[in-house]
């Protein structure tokens, strides 16, 4: 069964881009969210295998969303996908529970590799 992915980013353009990249490699996008609040409720409802999360979003940002999702499910597999690649922020995100960090702009292969890496860890 295809790995089920939830995409979280406030830019519809970025959600479309990630959807296209992941679909073309056989991944199933089970949902999209445009801010941290909606990400948390989508995670609860859809129980995706992997979550891709942006950091800077309105209402609730990525770090807080990661923490809330990890509270709900400590095994949650979260990849950050953000333009903010500063060391302190990457560390913060990983400490919150994210497993990997993709910096924008990214090559499509970086996204696929990060997802595949997480899939392998599960085996």
């Amino acid at each position, binding site marked *: 069964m295809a790995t089920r992915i939830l995409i979280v980013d*406030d830019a519809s353009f970025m959600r479309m881009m990630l959807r296209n990249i992941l679909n073309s490699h056989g991944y199933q996008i089970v949902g999209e969210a445009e*801010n941290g609040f909606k990400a948390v409720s989508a995670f609860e409802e859809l129980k995706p295998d992997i979550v891709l999360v942006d950091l800077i979003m*309105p*209402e609730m940002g990525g770090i807080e969303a990661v923490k809330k999702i990890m509270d709900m499910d400590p095994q949650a597999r979260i990849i950050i996908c953000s333009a903010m690649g500063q060391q302190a922020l990457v560390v913060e995100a990983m400490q919150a529970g994210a497993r990997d960090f993709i910096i924008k702009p990214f090559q499509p292969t970086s996204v696929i590799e990060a997802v595949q890496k997480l899939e392998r860890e599960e085996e």
Partner: protein
Amino acid sequence: MPDKIKVGMADWKFGRNNDVLVTFGLGSCVALALWEAKDKLAAMAHIMLPDSKLIRYRQEVSPAKFADTALTAMLEELQKLGYNKERFQAKVVGGANMFTFAGKTIGGNSMNVGQRNVLAVKEELRKLQIPLVGEDTGGTSGRSVEFYAANGILRIRTAMFGEKEV
């Protein structure tokens, strides 16, 4: 030959007869236009902020910068030229909210600065009993204004919606 007189930010100018007062780039700023019909005297201020009392450096800049000092300053000067305030009518343009961050207004105020500028200017007009006879305010577009002293008409241009007259 109409003389175009440019009014910059935080400034005010006046002109007569065939003069045209112009100001550009009204975003949250407000243009306050005063017109005296008999002598065809036009005065316009490009106001940036609602309240000078909140500003540390207010003594060092033109009173035209602030809604609460612009009208008084203009009327004082025009009075010296022989024009009492009773002779003027006013029009107000601008005070748009050009940027919203995900539905919220910037600055953390429940009212954005454009709205506050419009309200502050109207309050000054009310206090000094100058009739407000026209306005084009609010919205999300920037405006440029041409104010014709010959007939008191304001021609207002926006980037996307062409021209209108007030």
